[in-house]
């Protein structure tokens, strides 16, 4: 790795880390989800400051070009992050489903109560819809 490449990578990673950290400070991302990004950023930062680690790893695993290790690690990290996101997404979907269901049931029950005291129903069929 040339010195220029090294500085280039370090600058990008530092900018990314600062951005992620500012999001965390503004409470725009949860620490739980920021953690994996910060962690991978720091790993890449260490690797770009000490490229010797990459060369050593490449020799250990038997990869000819140290740069390929970078790609390999990058893909693995991305897989982990996307999978974690899929798990979170499924959990969120279940939560949104239950919220939608309970909200709609309560709306039905509210309108029944209203009709008992001779109030007109609140029309949720049209107004409550999105998109």
């Amino acid at each position, binding site marked *: 790795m040339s010195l220029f490449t090294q500085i280039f990578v370090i600058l990008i990673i530092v900018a990314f880390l600062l951005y992620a950290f500012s999001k965390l400070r503004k409470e725009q991302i949860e620490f739980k989800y920021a953690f994996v990004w910060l962690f991978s950023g720091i790993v890449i930062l260490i690797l770009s400051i000490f490229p010797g680690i990459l060369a050593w790893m490449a020799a250990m695993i038997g990869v000819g070009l140290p740069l390929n290790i970078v790609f390999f690690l990058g893909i693995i990290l991305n897989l982990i992050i996307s999978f974690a996101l899929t798990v979170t997404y499924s959990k969120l979907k279940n939560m949104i489903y239950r919220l*939608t269901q309970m909200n709609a049931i309560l709306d039905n029950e509210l309108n029944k109560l209203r009709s008992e005291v001779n109030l007109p129903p609140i029309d*949720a069929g049209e107004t409550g819809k*999105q998109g």
Partner: protein
Amino acid sequence: MRKLLIIPAYNEADNLAALVREIQTKAPGYDYIIINDGSTDHTAKVCCQHQLNVIHLGNNLGIGGAVQTGYLYAIRHNYDIAIQIDGDGQHDPAYLDALIMPLVEDEADFTIGSRFIENEGFQSSGLRRAGIRWLDTILKTGTGLDITDATSGFRACNQKVMQIFVSYYPKDYPEPETIADLYRHKLRILEVPVIMRERQSGVSSIRFFKPAYYMMKVTLSIIISHLKVKKK
């Protein structure tokens, strides 16, 4: 015993009023709840005009989420038996008493209305029947149960099953998978012969390229259901 009909409806404006009228004449002892799954037609307006008992979902949740809403409602309102019946007029309310009989007599926890026991009435196309037979075979391999109409949406259950459905219900193409789920929970499943009609209007939700996805998804989900952690 309090009995609730759960009617999932997505763009069924033309069928609902007639179905509810049919229920009230043929099966007066049954309450009903329509789940309007974010319909884009006049379903909501029709329900309002005829003052039908309806739950309007703000987002389109799909058949699984809609039916599950019905089971949630059934538990909240303390119904003993909940029956799922299609909003398109395929299922004849005249068979309700026969469908819930095994539940009332405590011979089963869950009953399925099957059109392939007596092989009478609307039998669906040959390709669809072949698909259903394949799912029956998958279920039989895993559970030993002789199910003839795994995809039937005409089904009844008691409170034990309602509790399970409220905690987990598949989101799309749920029917065959739920049978495997209930078997895993060691519940008693029974089929009852019924005669089904052709849908009155509207179109089936499973068409175009969906059959291929349907068969794969349902086959895999039945297998996965068997591999899930067994509950005591």
